[in-house]
């Protein structure tokens, strides 16, 4: 009995590994499958929203070309630009808000600290779009619901509430020893200098995470953009544009362009991620040694 066990240990591990890898491969395939399909569809030469074959019969890049040239009905380049501008601005603003709030709550002690955290927790339980109608009327009262100010309105919408989402960043700051801060204080640093020159460089993974989420939020948002843009087509974001491509009147001729648009909007996020990815890894290495 025992002999058999010893003899098969290697083999058993191999069998185990095979099973694990095969199931992982299947899962990975299932997961990547829809994305591959969208990419394939974006290169499909046959028109229409429905095709009887799974793989496209002919390939073309016309769908991409059309997105950028056929701009009289759905102006994709403009929407892309709008979204990029809004997303970058709100990304910068909300990253700052989140990190600053988290830092304060982690390092400073003040009377409202606990109540603020409780309030943020409770408010965080509500979906953001619950306040949508109120937000719309407030923006309208401020005169931000018409013309170019719509962009400002959207930036405010996306970044204004960011300070409530401090929890993860605060958790991270809590792990950086307070001793470092104290040492810096003794050396004459101000709170701001500690935050900017010591804590932030030590928290690169957190900063990266915050930047990514802060960028993706406005980049993919549909509901606020739809409510605030209304009939101002010049300020539409890509989410609205893509949604419009699937309406009854457009779906047949725009479906493949829709897939192309879907592929394109993933590019900025991918670039941002690839650029920031390395900081995920080396954020803490060798820095905190007290």
């Amino acid at each position, binding site marked *: 009995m025992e002999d058999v066990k010893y003899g098969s240990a290697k083999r058993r591990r191999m069998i185990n590994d095979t099973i694990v890898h095969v199931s992982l491969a299947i899962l990975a395939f299932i997961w990547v499958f829809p994305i591959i399909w969208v990419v394939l569809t974006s290169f499909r030469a046959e028109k*229409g929203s*429905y095709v*009887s074959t799974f793989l496209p019969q002919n390939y073309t890049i016309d769908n991409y070309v059309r997105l950028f040239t056929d701009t009289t009905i759905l102006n994709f380049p403009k929407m892309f630009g709008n979204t990029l501008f809004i997303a970058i601005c709100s990304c910068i603003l909300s990253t700052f808000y989140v990190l600053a709030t988290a830092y304060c709550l982690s390092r400073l002690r003040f009377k409202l600290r606990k109540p603020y955290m409780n309030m943020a927790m409770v408010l965080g339980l509500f979906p953001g779009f619950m306040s949508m109608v109120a937000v719309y009327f407030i923006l309208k009262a401020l005169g931000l619901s018409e013309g170019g100010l719509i962009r400002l309105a959207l930036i405010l919408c996306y970044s204004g509430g960011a300070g409530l989402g401090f929890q993860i960043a605060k958790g991270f700051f809590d792990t950086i020893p307070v001793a470092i801060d104290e040492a810096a204080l003794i050396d004459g640093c101000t709170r701001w200098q500690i935050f900017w020159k010591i804590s932030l460089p030590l928290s690169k993974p957190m900063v990266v995470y915050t930047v990514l989420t802060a960028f993706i939020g406005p980049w993919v948002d549909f509901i606020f953009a739809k409510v605030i843009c*209304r009939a101002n087509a010049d300020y539409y974001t890509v989410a609205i544009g893509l949604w419009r491509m699937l*309406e009854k009147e457009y779906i*047949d001729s725009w479906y493949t362009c829709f897939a192309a648009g879907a592929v394109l909007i993933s590019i900025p996020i991918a670039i941002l991620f690839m650029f920031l990815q390395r900081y995920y890894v080396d954020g803490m290495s060798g820095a905190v040694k007290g």
Partner: protein
Amino acid sequence: MKKKFLVLMTLLMSLCLIGGCGSQGQSASGNGETEDIRLMVWAPSEDQSKDSGEWLRKCCEAFAKEHPEYNIHFVYGVADEATAATTVAQDPESSADVFMYANDNLTVLKDAKAAAKFGGIYEQEVIDTNSETIVNSLRSDGYLYGVPFTTNTWYMFYDKSVFSEEDIKNLDTMLERGVVSFPFTNSWYLPAFYVGNGCTLFEDGTVEEAGVDFAGEKADDVTNYLIDLMANPNFVVDADGSGMAGLRDGSVNAIFTGSWDAASIKEILGDNMGVASLPCYTLNGEEKQMYAYAGSKAIGVNATSDNMVASIQLAIYLGSAEAQRLHYELRNVVPCNTELLNDESIAGDMLVTAQNDTFNNTSILQPFVSAMSNCWTPVENMGKGIRNKSVTHKNAKEQTQAMNDAMNSNGL
């Protein structure tokens, strides 16, 4: 530190105040002969695109020329007929003065008190230039709420090389000759069979208390017919664009849809494209006519508009024969003006004939009473049930009764 903060806050707040006032500044000062007005107009993006001739801008400019008493500053926005009403209802005050909407959204507009009523000479003009059915599609409680500019319904597109003029009169004959695709699981289309056999919705579509009558033997017969239809190998369900794809690869010879797909179908079938109003179907040996839901698209005026007279005049102009003709020439929007329909150049168009034949002969006015909103899901479920074979000849009677019950209840 504190002082700085205070100064900053005050500055911010005063900025906000100025911003708030700024948006309300209106230049509506009259100076004797010409009046400066600002009119916001919403239309679908095709009406404004250069590729399709900028119908909206051309019409608005022509209107301004006809009315020298106004000095109009036009502001254009994009809202298609299907969604404009909801967007206007969301906040009428900062919405367009003149917009285009589909008549099934009239209740939404009315509930938000956002649609202006047309009366007097304006109402008379609409009545004089349109058929009674289409005017009624924009009436509610006796008031008229817009100027119709086209009808909105579905009909049949077919391949002339497969079906003859004689074949297309009956669905069952067509199924012997070729493959027919029908949006079986879409509740805008499926009721056509039930209505064809005498089922009614809110009597003539306006009496909410009367409820829906999709029950009894007449409805059971239709359900049984549909089960057989589904089993026919030449019948294909059209869902998610599969009918159009079938036309493209030649596996389908006829589909049911509306003018929005006409251009694509023309591209596929070319000269073989045939368009016709709905066929009959043979139920227990008797021929029954299918009836589509029909509605209209109209130009509405915002009830909160600051320049009511000018807005109404513009709406009337955008719905006039002249504007409709331009709309037809630029974008193939089927006109509904009675005078234009008698015009030979327009009456000769297959699409116009089919759409108007359908509207006049083989359709019922799509009810826009509030209770209509309960009628969509049960019919859709019936279609899906038949497709999935969970509705069979055995339980057809109970299932039909269940559909009728669900249509008559608000789900509470």
